[in-house]
């Protein structure tokens, strides 16, 4: 049975040890779906099931916090939510709400910080003295320290520079041994790093086998505003500009068609 499941038009499942990505253009409803999966918003349609059971009581009293602790979420631009005096305190903020003893909290913070490769004296520094990328990593550590069964990531690399972005992505892969991961992104390249890919479009999800399968749809993806690898991005622009390009997603064939199209236009 899936650890976490969304039913309805935006159905998706995620299992233990799995990284699943949800690819959607800006404005496709990624954040809403992410909040629903993390039990931070009531589903607009469908239901969210944790281990096959509804995660929220049917009607909750205002103010009562009955959100399951098994699911945590890294919100967009999560570094904006840091507040504590030291990195350690910030990462320990979540675990302190779990009534753990001090040693256990200490262990968890240590493990979380080393998972995001922030070691040494960083823990005693102020989060506001760190760089943007480092602060994003502190925020991720804060979520990891909850040791959730499912981790929801809402565009974890948004607004990071390309190098930090790649570092961040490389850090996510080993996390699958701790939590099942649902990774929301607008970039096809990032989505392709997951085991399974869902495409979120027009309020519906569609499961796509893998990266190769995904790029077959490059025409519609380019039109929808999803970030594609450069070649497909270019093909998308040229196709709307009247270039005749084949339906194939094969990179070599596409490249050749673009080169030929260019020659035809400019050699005349």
């Amino acid at each position: 049975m899936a650890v976490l499941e969304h039913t309805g038009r935006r159905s998706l499942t995620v299992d233990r040890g799995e990284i699943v990505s949800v690819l959607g253009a800006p404005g496709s409803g990624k954040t809403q779906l992410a909040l629903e999966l993390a039990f931070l918003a009531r589903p607009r349609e469908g239901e969210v099931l944790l281990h096959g059971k509804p995660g929220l009581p049917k009607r909750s009293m205002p103010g009562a916090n009955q959100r399951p602790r098994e699911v945590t979420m890294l919100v967009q631009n999560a570094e904006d939510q840091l507040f504590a005096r030291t990195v350690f305190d910030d990462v320990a903020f979540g675990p302190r709400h779990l009534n753990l003893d001090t040693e256990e909290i200490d262990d968890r913070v240590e493990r979380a910080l080393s998972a995001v490769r922030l070691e040494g004296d960083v823990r005693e520094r102020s989060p506001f003295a760190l760089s943007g990328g480092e602060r994003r990593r502190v925020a991720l550590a804060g979520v990891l320290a909850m040791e959730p069964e499912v981790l929801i990531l809402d565009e974890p690399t948004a607004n990071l520079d390309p190098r930090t972005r790649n570092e961040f992505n490389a850090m996510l892969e080993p996390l699958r041994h701790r939590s099942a991961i649902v990774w929301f992104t607008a970039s096809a390249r990032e989505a392709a790093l997951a085991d399974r890919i869902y495409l979120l479009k027009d309020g519906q999800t569609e499961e796509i086998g893998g990266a190769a399968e995904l790029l077959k749809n490059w025409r519609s993806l380019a039109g929808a505003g999803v970030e594609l690898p450069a070649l497909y991005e270019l093909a998308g622009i040229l196709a709307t500009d009247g270039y005749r390009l084949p339906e194939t997603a094969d990179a070599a064939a596409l490249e050749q068609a673009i080169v030929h199209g260019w020659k035809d236009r400019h050699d005349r």
Partner: protein
Amino acid sequence: MIASGPQLLSYQTGTSFLHRLDPRTKLLGAAVIVTGVLLAGRPSAMVAAYLLGAAAGLLARSLLPALARTLRPLVILIIIFGIIITFVTPGHALFRIGPIVFTQDGLDLAVRLGLQALLIVYGTSLLTLTTPPLSLAAAMEWVLGFLRWFKVPVRDIIAMVAIGLTFVPLLIEEVQKVIAAQRARGADLSMMSLLDEDSMGALMIPLLLANLRRGEELADSMEARLYGTGPRSSLVVWHWSRTDLFTSIVLLLTLAVIAALAFTPLGKF
């Protein structure tokens, strides 16, 4: 992001009588309602103040459902505080439940304060619902214009007020965002937990930082467009119509009637 209901204070487009009125007249109207109800120590004066409020409401009928929704939480709050006031005020005992004594004086005070609070919020909401923040700021600038002779930087103060009003919906959105983010990492940000220092910081510090950042960006972008480099002309061309004159006279007369009912033997029955 989490819950988007009708937002307090935010302008609703429309073409009602109140919408068309000069913002300065509306400002006067809100001032009359607020002063009137604060003066109204007697039931007769209170009735007169409420009649004025009702008349103003009828001139923007389409807004009343939205207004009622905004006021509902306030009514609940007023009732709760009313009950508390009724038994903490000493005086002639009305009835008792165990050791708690409810007094007549407390009841009188609770009813008066409750009615005053309700009408003040109602009157000022009518103003902000029917007046775009920038017109409202311009009207305030006009009214406070005389302070310029005392070297008060009226225009800058008003610009700050206007920006503040415009950013209220954004601030609400920001609060909801921070709450969701902190709950996502295990915080219990219910009303009770706000008493705990750690949770309070988790809410207030990101909020404060976000607003400082926004303020800084806004200042930069305004200065990039040469704000504050020279004398400014006014964007607003005032149209003081006959309706405005008539409305203002009615407003001032009503205020006089309320004052008369409150302070002279006329209102004593």
